[in-house]
């Protein structure tokens, strides 16, 4: 009996030992020693259809699968476009004196699609029962075909598809000739939603097929930023066969749609799509191969980033993305070696990174001991704090309001904010343009002279006295309204409502209290916050913007008058309107990068600094960690198709995983023994009671 009991207690541990040397490996034993990359995703992707997908979470999947004509150079900075499927970078050709611009894109012949059921004709007429039995579309016979210009044209047409929602349809309708009218025509033609809408039967004026491998896009006016869009998933090819396959009745019910099963020519193909647990990309056997870049920044060679120059990519066979909704298990699994790369959450920052007195960051000793490397990059993003220019107190172009905004811009100490709340992960912004993008000036020339001074070779925030002086000139001496004598009361609208946000909001109150201004924080949910921004009823607020492409236009448009949010649906949430700024914006957006463009940008930034519709917040710094077995990892904020460059030293990973994850059994045994021993008094008491004679009454 006792032996059976002991066996039962130890059975779970015994069964675990059957898993091999390592017990806590979350991956199947069959994957050990395989050339896989292990990564994570936090949010379920909403869309994998390139016509709709617009988030970083989604692009980490689709950018490995789909290939637009252009891509960003992996190593060179500032960011540089290079051909991907295109033969060369398209050059704009102006027609009718600049009334139209034509981009002619020639793609390379011989590029083939991944194996996919869409390319087998028999799969286009499947009986309903067969579809219902499928677990994956890849259970069907697979075929392929060559990539042709028509596939790119088909996708451009899909931007106007009446059953899809492309976020850039509005923008492209302004530029691609005939796009707005095309969207209307398609809506009229889409009378029966149960039938596939074959876009090949509907021509789009602004897009023309030249030959099997060449197509032209005709734009209204000039739009130099169009080439950047050609490096985004919106302009990847989609074969009509794929759309037709997934339009068959019963496919959507099985979640077999183009939105969940992308098809492309890239180095990887999606072989498992389980957005609840894991997504797997397999090497595309039809991928043509692409040489690893042989040029980069001067320090890249020393960092070993050119060691694979000229070798054929991709290097990794399989990419396994596991879903981790919580940061604690994610971080611990990274430390165990089960994820190859990881970001750093604020909870883990102190464990991972050491910040020196000079502000330099390096991995902690624990990370160095494990061979973990830290990479940082200032993101092409800005977090700003805006004033609503329609507000009667802080808004408007009067000298009073401008000086009030300037005073607050000085008083809000963003250096302190970064130090306290962001672990120093960011650089103070002096304009909307982040580092690494043409138009941004550095050093003394780059500082916002209204909020900072250049002293001892570095920028320093102006003293509070300057802010108080401006405040007095604005008509609020000592932060009080002279008419009523009451302190100036301002409102800060924010979605920060969690317990962890209290300190941040207190900090904001203190910043304005230094000018004797009272700040009332209006905490609200995301929906109400958006509504306030949309209707222009906020006063002070905070928002952010990440670059679509590395061009100053993509940031300066956030202050463009015609895009005022309260007057339409633009991205100018401060509703800043300055006709001079707007005129310069119209001029700047069509100019190539040149000294002349720099002068125009400088003038615009000067206006924005003087008018101060924003407190120019900060540009966040992204920190990422990678294990010693991951090679060719260089942060790139623009290129999403970076997996093909990565290489894994699999034997090293296996050895280190074994070393780091040796099971420690004895504490579990001790606990079991303790439980057993603690039961002894109970057993003894029970026996004593059972043998006890009845007590006299």
């Amino acid at each position, binding site marked *: 009996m006792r032996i059976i009991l002991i066996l039962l207690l130890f059975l779970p*541990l015994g*069964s*675990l030992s059957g*898993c091999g040397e390592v*017990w*806590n490996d*979350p991956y*199947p034993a069959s994957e050990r020693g395989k050339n896989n990359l292990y990564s994570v995703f936090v949010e*379920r992707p*909403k*869309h994998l259809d390139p016509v709709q997908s*617009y*988030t970083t979470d989604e692009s980490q999947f689709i950018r490995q699968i789909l290939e637009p004509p252009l891509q960003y150079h992996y190593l060179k900075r500032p960011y540089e476009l290079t051909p991907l499927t295109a033969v060369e970078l398209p050059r704009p050709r102006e027609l009718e004196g600049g009334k139209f611009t034509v981009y002619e894109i020639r793609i390379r012949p011989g590029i083939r699609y991944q194996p996919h059921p869409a390319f087998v004709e028999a799969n286009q007429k499947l009986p309903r029962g067969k579809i219902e039995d499928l677990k994956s579309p890849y259970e069907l016979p697979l075929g392929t075909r060559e990539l042709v210009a028509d596939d790119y044209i088909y996708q451009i047409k899909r931007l106007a598809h009446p*059953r899809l*929602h492309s*976020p*850039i*349809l*509005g*923008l492209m309708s302004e530029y691609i000739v005939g796009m707005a009218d095309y969207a209307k025509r398609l809506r009229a033609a889409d009378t029966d939603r149960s039938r596939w809408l074959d876009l090949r039967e509907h021509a789009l004026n602004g897009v023309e097929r030249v030959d099997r491998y060449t197509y032209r896009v005709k734009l209204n006016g000039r739009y130099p930023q169009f080439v950047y869009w050609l490096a985004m998933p919106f302009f990847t090819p989609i074969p009509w066969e794929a759309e037709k396959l997934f339009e068959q009745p019963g496919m*959507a*019910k*099985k*979640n077999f*749609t183009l*939105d*969940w099963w992308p098809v492309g020519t890239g180095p990887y193909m999606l072989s498992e799509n*389980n957005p*609840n*647990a894991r997504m797997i990309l397999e090497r595309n056997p039809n991928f043509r191969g692409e040489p690893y870049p042989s040029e980069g920044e001067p320090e890249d060679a020393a960092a070993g980033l050119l060691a694979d120059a000229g070798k054929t990519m991709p290097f990794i066979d399989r990419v396994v993305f*596991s*879903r*981790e*909704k*919580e940061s*604690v*298990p994610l971080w*611990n*699994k990274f*430390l*165990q070696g089960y994820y190859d790369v990881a970001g750093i959450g604020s909870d883990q920052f102190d464990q991972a990174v050491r910040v020196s007195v000079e502000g330099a960051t390096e991995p902690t000793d624990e990370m160095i001991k494990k061979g973990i490397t830290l990479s940082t990059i200032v993101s092409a993003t800005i977090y700003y704090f805006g004033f609503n220019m329609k507000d009667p107190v802080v808004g408007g172009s009067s000298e009073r309001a401008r000086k009030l905004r300037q005073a607050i811009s000085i008083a809000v100490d963003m250096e302190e904010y970064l130090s306290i709340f962001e672990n120093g992960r960011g650089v103070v912004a002096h304009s909307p343009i982040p580092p690494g993008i043409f138009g941004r000036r550095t050093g003394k020339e780059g500082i916002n002279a209204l909020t900072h001074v250049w002293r001892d070779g570095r920028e320093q925030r102006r003293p509070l006295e300057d802010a108080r002086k401006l405040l007095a000139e604005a008509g609020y001496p000592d932060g009080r309204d002279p008419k009523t004598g009451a302190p100036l009361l301002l409102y800060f609208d924010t979605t920060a409502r969690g317990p962890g946000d209290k300190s941040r909001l207190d900090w904001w109150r203190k910043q304005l209290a230094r000018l004797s201004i009272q700040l009332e924080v209006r905490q609200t*949910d*995301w*929906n109400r916050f*958006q509504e306030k921004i949309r209707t222009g009823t906020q006063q002070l607020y905070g928002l952010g913007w990440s670059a*679509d492409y590395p061009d100053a236009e993509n940031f300066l448009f956030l202050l463009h008058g015609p895009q005022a949010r309260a007057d339409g*649906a633009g*991205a100018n949430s401060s509703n800043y309107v300055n006709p001079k700024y707007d005129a310069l914006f119209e001029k700047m957006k069509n100019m190539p990068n040149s000294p002349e463009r720099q002068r125009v940008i400088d003038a615009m930034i000067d206006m924005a600094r003087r008018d101060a519709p924003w407190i120019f917040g900060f540009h966040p710094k992204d920190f990422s960690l990678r294990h010693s077995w991951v090679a060719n990892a260089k942060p790139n904020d623009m290129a999403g198709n970076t997996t093909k460059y990565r290489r894994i030293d699999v034997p090293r990973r296996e050895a280190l995983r074994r070393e780091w994850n*040796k*099971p*420690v*059994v004895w*504490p*579990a045994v001790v606990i079991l023994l303790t439980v057993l021993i603690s039961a002894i*008094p*109970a057993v003894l*008491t*029970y026996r004593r*009671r*059972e043998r006890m004679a009845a007590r006299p009454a």
Partner: protein
Amino acid sequence: MLGYILRRVLYAIPILVGVNLITFALFFIVNTPDDMARMHLGVKRVTPEAIEKWKQERGYDRPLFFASQQNGLSKITQTIFFEKSVRLFAFDFGPAEDRRDIGEEIRARMGPSLALAIPVFLVGLAVNITFALLMAFFRATYLDFWGVVLCVAMMSISTLFYIIGGQYVAAKLWNLVPISGYDGGLDAGRFVILPVLIGVVSGIGSGSRWYRTIFLEEMGRDYVRTARAKGLAESVVLFRHVLKNAMIPILTGAVVVIPLLFMGSLLAESFFGIPGLGSYTIDAIQAQDFAVVRSMVFIGSVLYIMGLLLTDLSYTLVDPRIRFD
């Protein structure tokens, strides 16, 4: 019996309509269809036309409860509430706002949820009853006292602490099991060992104290005294008599949750990366996916009603005096 069941099923219909109505009202007090559209379309470059189109495609461009412009019955039927509610009663959940089929999702996530919930329920029930019986057996001794102290201490610790602490100790420090993740088939075992253990341990405190109270109440009854007077061993008194007679309150608490096991565990599934229905519901709430929230609340209500019915029926098994005539 059949008549009773039929009557209860019919009673359930107005309850389900009411639950659906309350869910609907609460959801749309917080989120307007415009908010939902914005949430799903993202924040970058969303035009008013795109929002209108999104609403139109999903039927959110209609009035919520009453279509005053329509005639006759259409005033009721041409509304968001009617359109979205009627299909639920046929268990046709339709697509989520991201167009994935809800029924398909539920089928896929049911297995992982049950793989975690059933062992936690069964092992937990067995452990709690055993521990409670032991405390009742050793009542008024130092073993009972320290047992109750242990229970109170275990009740006072948050479930989150058990989870994070368990992950740290068992998976990080001792490397015995994976920290998180899930796999199908038999492989699921090594992923659910730790969450099951944590689920059982975290429930011992409250469960055992509750059952101890029930057992102590039963042990004061006349039939227990009679059994002892007959000279029966204490173990026989406890397991054959007390346990059997305490089954009604035990069943009241236990059977009602059996159908709800299907709904999954919100916290454990999130932390252990188990792709079950609990995390599906949380994701839907965060994403303002009304189609999923509505479906999950509806299923939860149906299961709860089923649980109550099963509880009532189970009484007949443990107490022959109970009849549903």
